[in-house]
């Protein structure tokens, strides 16, 4: 039992300590943060193997907790290592918020009491807001927007919890399991789901992620929206769908619909982006859709796939954002037009980025492929009950997957391949500091590792305990395909070396009618995608979303402004008006009393 207090308390207290330390003690602060993260990760890893039994009550420690905790510990550690060279200004605040975030996130997943959970949930909103604000004055607007979306849905979370309490008389996750049979229960379900969606960034609460992507420090992006917030949002969604509420057709259909729309809508927006971080942010939105669809499929394999995708997404998206951070650090830009040819200068970053891109696009043998596969299989299985909506979901998910690949080809090409652009030629670009490389290598390695040892590690160790219904032997036998894949890869490498690398050869620049290749002739690859922007039907959709009609924040803001304007006109500032209202008030009160 005490271990829980240490797990939550240690990072929060050390975080508060970091906030108090002088910014000049940068190394000291980093040291403290790294030590705490390392200790947390170590302890969590130890406890993962040897699950502690804790008394019923305020806290809970089941297999879902176990998995999410592992993710929190791991990503906290990775980002902390990476931040050493990345964060120069305000280290005290940065690492302080980082540690508090870790502590609060652990609190969220360990809480059995819903009120306690919502408290930690709220602390996370605060640290998210403050961490975005570390990006400087330009980050102030996106931070505000994020805070309103995330904090606003927190209020709905409270309302949902209050309704649950009124319906069941209990606040403990372990005690609540209700049927959605009346509108109050449905309202509670939607309130809770809105909080999970906002945190994870699913539509319609997604707009804060692209908004902050360019302004917030990139390690914050990698830590919060890309990994931790996904883990927590999907954790809450899983709790809602697996623990708190019993399967209800309409509600689950609604979830799947939102998930599918998220996948396709966000990926289309991602395609036309010109900034690497913004593009990645849209993918961070799009991928949530898969998790939502997986969990909403309502059958074990789909749920397991959704959870697995949550973990995978955190791994590769963290890797991608950190890679983008390294590129920005070395080149000073993240605009795709201004990059190019970095593959030669940054071979390791390139490899990691490539691995992660393959993973997110769902190419075997990387982890993303397997989780998507499980989600698809889950969808197909859900069709066995007679409900045919799965066909739509699976088609949308596959379209999303294809377009993901397309947009990552855009990044890979315009960043690492081709020739470098004018402004990069003068710069001396070399690999980043090793503290920034190690996290990348670790994450990229994990993408491959979780793919190849798909059955033996993730499924057996992580997912089977959470969703007992999945039987690896029923799913599909992967040993042979993987063996063949590895064999093919080895063979390919062999031929590559014998025929290309080992042979004597002469390297010449391409001959283009005697012209020298100059930077003006560079094709960044972003131009190809302009076609999509101009396609007949899609351009209407893009125009629609550029006018912010799909942004729930902007829509509500203009609605509220409309009412505000009305009331502002009514408040004339003239005493006579106010006195008239008073008389009116007296009359109304008298009327009420006389009538009743």
């Amino acid at each position, binding site marked *: 039992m005490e271990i829980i207090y240490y797990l939550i308390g240690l990072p929060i207290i050390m975080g508060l300590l970091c906030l108090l330390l002088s910014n000049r003690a940068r190394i000291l602060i980093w040291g403290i943060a790294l030590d705490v993260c390392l200790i947390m990760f170590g302890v969590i890893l130890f406890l993962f193997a040897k699950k502690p039994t804790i008394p019923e009550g305020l806290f809970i420690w089941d297999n879902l907790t176990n998995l999410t905790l592992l993710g929190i510990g791991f990503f906290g550690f990775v980002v902390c290592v990476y931040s050493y060279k990345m964060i120069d200004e305000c280290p005290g605040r940065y690492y302080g918020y980082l540690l508090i975030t870790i502590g609060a996130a652990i609190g969220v997943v360990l809480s059995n009491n819903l*009120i306690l959970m*919502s*408290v*930690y*949930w*709220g*602390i996370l*909103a*605060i640290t998210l807001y403050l961490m975005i*604000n570390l990006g400087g*004055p*330009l*980050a*102030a*607007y996106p*931070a*505000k927007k994020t*805070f*309103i979306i995330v*904090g*606003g849905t*927190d*209020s*709905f979370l*409270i*309302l949902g919890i*209050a*309704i649950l*309490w*009124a319906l069941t008389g209990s606040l403990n996750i372990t005690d609540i399991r209700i049927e959605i049979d009346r509108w*109050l229960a449905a*309202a509670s379900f939607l309130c809770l789901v809105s909080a999970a969606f906002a945190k994870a960034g699913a539509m319609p609460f997604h707009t804060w992620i692209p908004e902050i992507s360019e302004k917030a420090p990139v390690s914050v992006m990698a830590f919060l929206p890309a990994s931790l917030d996904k883990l927590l949002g999907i954790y809450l969604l899983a709790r809602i769908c697996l623990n708190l509420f019993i399967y209800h057709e309409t509600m689950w259909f609604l979830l799947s619909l939102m998930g599918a729309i998220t996948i396709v809508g966000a990926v289309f927006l991602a395609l036309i982006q010109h900034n690497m971080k913004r593009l990645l942010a849209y993918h961070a939105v799009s991928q949530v859709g898969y998790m939502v669809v997986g969990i909403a499929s309502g059958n074990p394999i789909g749920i397991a796939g959704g959870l697995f995708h949550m973990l995978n997404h955190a791994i590769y998206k963290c890797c991608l954002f950190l890679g983008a951070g390294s590129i920005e650090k070395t080149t000073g830009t993240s605009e795709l037009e201004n990059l190019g040819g970095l593959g030669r200068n940054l071979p390791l970053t390139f490899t990691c980025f490539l691995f992660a891109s393959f993973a997110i696009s769902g190419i075997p043998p990387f982890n993303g492929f397997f989780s998507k596969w499980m989600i698809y299989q889950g969808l197909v299985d859900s069709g066995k009950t007679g409900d045919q909506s799965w066909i739509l979901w699976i088609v949308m998910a596959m379209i999303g997957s294809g377009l993901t690949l397309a947009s990552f080809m855009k990044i890979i090409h315009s960043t690492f391949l081709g020739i470098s652009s004018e402004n990069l030629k003068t710069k001396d670009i070399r690999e980043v500091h090793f503290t920034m490389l190690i996290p990348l290598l670790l994450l990229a390695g994990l993408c491959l590792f979780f793919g190849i040892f798909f059955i033996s590690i993730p499924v057996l160790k992580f997912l089977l305990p959470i969703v007992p219904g999945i039987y690896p032997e029923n799913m599909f036998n992967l040993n042979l395909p993987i063996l063949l894949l590895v064999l093919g890869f080895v063979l390919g490498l062999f031929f590559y070396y014998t025929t290309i690398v080992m042979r004597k050869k002469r390297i010449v620049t391409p001959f283009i009618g005697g012209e020298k290749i100059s930077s003006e002739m560079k094709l960044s690859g972003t131009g190809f995608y302009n076609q999509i922007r101009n396609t007949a039907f899609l351009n209407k959709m893009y125009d629609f979303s550029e006018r912010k009609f799909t942004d729930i924040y902007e829509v509500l*803001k203009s609605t*509220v*402004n409309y*009412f*505000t*304007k009305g*009331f*502002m006109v009514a*408040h004339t*500032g003239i*005493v006579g*008006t*106010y*006195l008239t*209202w*008073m008389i*009116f*008030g*007296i009359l109304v*009160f*008298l009327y*009420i*009393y*006389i009538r*009743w």
Partner: protein
Amino acid sequence: MDNLSLFISIPAAVAFFIPVVSRRLRWFPDVSASVTSFFLLMLSLMTLNHETVYKMGDWPAPYGVVFVLDGFSCMMLVIVNLVVFFTAIYSVDYIEKFYTSKLRYYSLLLLVLTGVNGVILTGDLFNLFIFLELSLVASFALVGFGCSARDLEGSFKYLVINLLASYLIFMGIALLYGKFASLNMADIARMVANSDGMSDQVVVFAFVLLLVGFATKSAIVPFHGWVADAYTSAPAPISAVLTGAAVKSLGVYVLIRLAYNIFGMNSILSTIFAYSGVASIIIGVLMALGQWNFKRLLAYHSISQIGYIILAFGIGTPLAIVGGIFHILNHSLFKPLLFLNAGSVEYETGERNLARLGHLSKKMPVTAISSLIASFSISGIPPFNGFWSKLLIIVAAVQAGRPLLALWAVIGSILTLASFAKIQKYVFFGSGERFKEKMLSGVGEVPFLMRISMIVLAIFCSLAGLLLVGGLNGIFGPVVNALAGGPELYITRIFGK
């Protein structure tokens, strides 16, 4: 501590002493107000959980004036004196910079405190009216303390609307006196209960007049016209006193005392409270969203937060009462703090317009952090205090079978968050459209005493949630008992069995 008249006589005496003494002793006004309010704060803390009835001149109840101390008035005394203490400390440097006559300022401030304490303690309707007027006249002078045209305009509106409300109250009291031939509140309560009074037209009319009068004092929609101008033109610490102490005790406290302990709650009153609470929450916050003046924005939020309190008392279950009283306490912590923040920003930059401010988080760290904490509190972000009271109110609304009221409370909370995110963006983290770099030259942190009162209030905001640790019946138990007991308990407290 049985001599309750000390709460009234001490500040009154010091208030009259200040002009006499301070011709010689220049330091006296500064020290006197702080020391007096600190002493009263300690005194009120000593009286916590201490219920007593003090008879003036030992005259028994219906004939003499009684001072009643029960759970509710205890809590209110602590809140009011706390607010006045911190604003008194804050005023030392603030008034020095912007205004001239310190001795008048402090003497008026203590008169406000006298009136407020009197209203909270007294058990006699006419006495209550006297203290109310004392407080009103003093605060009227304080609101217009700067004597510029705008200050006087705010002060004028404050005076006219509140005087009208006072007349209504006076008329209500006169009608009740005519009907029952008594001014003692417990006596009236007894007669109302015995004679089935709420079906009597005269009593109902008198009650409605009182209701409207005190609703105006507590700035509930649609009686809120005076708030924005008065709070904006008053010196920042006075806005803090008005919102933290005056409105709470002159308006909300009396309203709740009348409703719960004198006339008794019923379903009509509960409905009126709940819906006017919701109207205040929504209209207040919507108006706040459109403001660009820092203090005006806070003023409209004051309406909105009072709405939460009234809503809670409209729901009326014990849980809601705890939520309501806790929200009174919390609002008296974070809203004065926010006004003090606004005052500090004005102290350093001379600017109240959000569009012209910016980038102050580095220049004024204490102000920035304390206002951040206050903003989190008022927006109901855990673990700060506002979260807990709003949580209780929302839960109570749902539990009482009125989820729609809870929904409105939640919407109000989100809009509150939006407008405070706006303040943080324009003043501290980012900047407004008309921000100019030269505004920042020479801007630093405010003097020590101003900092201290902001820091301590911010710490209270962060930790006040711990008051719930002892369970709902811990600190707030006596308050709930006093209110939920209804008129019977109040009558027994004063007349015995």
